[in-house]
């Protein structure tokens, strides 16, 4: 039986009076890659920000390693082992590349391990070693994406949540990012929750997939079972309803 690491249990999240996310449930098992795909404005970032403790769900629960974590401050959530790579990357542009990495490690006490881990990240992304003294704002978009993944890794998370890693990157860079993410799972058993707008790449990387639209989960399933794509398209664009009405009208 798979061991559940993160369980989002029917959360509803409001911005003011607007419910951006309604009754969303997501399960991530240990060692899994789970993708959530949905169009712009579907509530993907809202869901990830709630998991990280930045937003507080008005109902529902978020359970991590068997412990309820909603309502806990973001810095505590990070210390419990959830590290987010947010949408738009958010490198600290005024800090050097290495300082960015070290910020990731500051919650840890195992000093010797930290130095080793920094080396490992610099091996994984050699550019981060070569440019370690440069200010992080000078890196290209792809390099910044590598930096924030490396930075998140250095918190030694049990799960990484990644918000639209392909946003604004050239296709070959996106390939590289996904290559790294799948390597992380294979070599270190990292658990990943990835959010994307397009289902193509997500389907290739994911074990399981959720489609979210208008703040609600439409379908979920094993990636292998959703390969044909038609089901996803329906859930993503909401053609379902349209087809039904067409069918009703013609009968």
């Amino acid at each position, binding site marked *: 039986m798979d061991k559940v690491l993160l369980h989002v249990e029917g959360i509803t999240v409001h911005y003011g009076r607007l419910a951006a996310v309604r009754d969303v449930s997501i399960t991530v098992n240990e060692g899994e890659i789970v993708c959530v795909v949905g169009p712009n404005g579907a509530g993907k970032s809202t869901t990830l920000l709630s998991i*990280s403790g*930045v*937003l507080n769900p008005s109902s529902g629960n978020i359970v991590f390693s068997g412990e309820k974590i909603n309502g806990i*401050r*973001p*810095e505590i*959530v*990070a*210390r419990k082992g959830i*590290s*987010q790579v*947010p949408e738009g990357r*958010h490198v*600290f*542009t*005024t*800090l050097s590349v290495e*300082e*960015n990495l*070290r*910020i*990731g490690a*500051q*919650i840890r006490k195992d000093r010797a391990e930290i130095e080793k881990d920094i080396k490992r990240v610099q091996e994984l992304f050699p550019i981060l070693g070569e440019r370690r003294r440069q200010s992080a*704002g000078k890196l290209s978009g792809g390099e910044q994406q590598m930096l924030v993944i490396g*930075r*998140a890794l250095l*918190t030694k998370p049990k799960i990484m949540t990644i918000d639209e890693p392909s946003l604004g990157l050239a296709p070959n860079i996106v390939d590289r990012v996904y290559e790294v993410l799948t390597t992380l799972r294979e070599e270190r058993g990292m658990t990943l929750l990835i959010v994307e707008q397009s289902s193509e790449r997500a389907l290739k990387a994911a074990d399981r997939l959720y489609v979210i639209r208008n703040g609600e989960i439409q379908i979920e399933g094993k990636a292998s079972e959703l390969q044909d794509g038609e089901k996803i398209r329906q859930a993503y664009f909401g053609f379902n309803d349209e087809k039904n009405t067409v069918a009703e009208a013609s009968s």
Partner: protein
Amino acid sequence: MQDIVKNFNYKKILSDKRALVILGIVISIIGIIVAVTDPVRFQILITSVSEGSFYALAALGIGLLFGVLRLINFAYGDWVMLAGYALILPSTAVTSTLIIGSFHPVLIVLIIIGFTVLLSVLSESTVFRPMRNTNPAIMMIASFALGYVLQNLTIMIYGGRPKSAGIFEELTQTVDLAEGVSVPLLKIITIGVTAVLLILLTLFLHRTRIGIQMRAAAEDFRMARMLGVRANFVIAMAFVISGFLASFVSLMYVTQIGILTFRMGTPIIVFAFIATVIGGMGSLVGSVVGGMVVGVSSVVLKNILPGSIRGFSDAFVFGIVIAILLARPQGLVPAKSARERV
């Protein structure tokens, strides 16, 4: 030649970063060359740099809190004021009696630092922490309110009349630096203390874990928290440093003026705030540059303006400020943050 004059566009120069740096260096070099040829001018140079240092420190105390918290803290001037009153016996009597101010100089400095840091941290925990998730305008108004409370508290405890407080009086004596150049020792000490504090602050922000966390939080608070940086701790640290700087501002000011009034913080905060704005809100280098611009131009103008309009030198200082802001509304050294906190 006429072309050059015609094409000279101060806004263009001020909006280009490289041109601005070169302009700054050129002005400094001209200033120094002009100054070393004449004892009186040299005196003006020392005095103006000392004034600039003073405002740089005051502006840093404000800029730091703005950087981390988006708080424009108008109570800062009243911390400076209260730190001054802490030197004397709490009483409404007309004459004042030095208590802490009569201790050994090292003890005076340490106690005033402790007092101001405590005041700053208490302001944070009682007033600003509960308001942290409101917006910057509300926090700014709260800082005004806190300032008034502190001022009225001072009137209650010490009375509303100005009181004398002569500390470090030997520092107001002049020393001869060279033939015909004599300046008050305090000016030189102000420059020296500021230089040391700037170096310490820079080392702190770049070499320590807490410092790096503070810089990260100042740029992108939410991201820093998602990496485990403790919001309460970083903000408390910013208040500690801001209070620490305020204690030096106060000691320098009281030594210079020798008189305490409950309103003495106001001119300091006005000039320091202007310095942070022209430097670039939230940028620490900007605060120092802005403080220097305000301090130096204020002293230089007081000395070079013809006698009839000398009394209005502040108007010229503000004129310079407006000119800078028209060309660079973001400030001379804008900060790299401005992302909203959640």
